[in-house]
């Protein structure tokens, strides 16, 4: 199953609902293009909902890092929401769990963005 993405706005925060696989090739490109498009539109508060992402490889991890640093370098914030156990464990062993701001409640996550 390839990656699918949809976006919605909640209180000035863009929530990116993702599902499927973030892997080398299509999945990573889809995520990259989405973040690039949001930044181009000035939407710099991004909450990446990974609740339905069931697989991610090292390229996908790299794409998450790239999205995080790209948004931050443009003065925005990118946070992660609803990690599956697989993704959570991968971020733990790669020591990225503490790099990302990881949330598990959407309403609280939206409130946590700088106004």
């Amino acid at each position, binding site marked *: 199953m390839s990656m699918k993405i949809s976006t919605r706005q909640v209180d000035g925060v863009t929530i990116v609902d993702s599902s499927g696989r973030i*892997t*080398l*090739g299509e999945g990573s490109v889809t995520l990259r293009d989405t973040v690039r498009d949001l930044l181009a539109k000035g939407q710099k508060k991004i909450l990446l909902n990974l609740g339905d992402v069931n697989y991610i*490889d*090292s*390229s996908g*991890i*790299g*794409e998450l*890092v*790239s999205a*995080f*640093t790209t948004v931050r370098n443009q003065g925005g914030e990118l946070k992660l929401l609803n990690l599956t156990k*697989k993704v959570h464990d*991968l971020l733990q*062993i*790669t*020591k*990225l769990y503490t*790099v990302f701001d990881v949330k598990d409640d959407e309403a609280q996550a939206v409130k946590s963005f700088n106004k």
Partner: protein
Amino acid sequence: MTEQRVSYTLDSTLETVDNAEQTASRLAADAGFDEEDVMKISMAVREAAVNAVLHGNAYDPAKKVVVDFEKTPKDLVITIRDQGKGLDPDKIPDPLAPENLLKTSGRGIFLIRSFMDEVHIHPSQTGTEIKLVKHVHGTSVDGKEASQ
């Protein structure tokens, strides 16, 4: 438990990566590994296949990737060979070092070593061979090893 061995010679494409991952998942499940180990094995094979296709053969259509799966009573052994310039494992930066944490690549070998019981990397001028070993439960005699 009988011994089984299958070998595939594959093109240097992303389809090869997916095929290797799916075959590893199926064979690991057939070998009796639990769901978590199946995921670890298939992911390690995927990462090794990515290295072979991208960094080894660099998508060269003239170069092939050979993937061997061998099931013994004690182990599932997967060997992946490319025809690239040869990967020097000693030159791979530590992806956990603070200065590398935010790099967008360089985690593949680390994940492979995290997920498998043994990883043996044999670089040569004619390509790289990486052998991945997962012990069948109850047969592990030592810890993780990463060596030439």
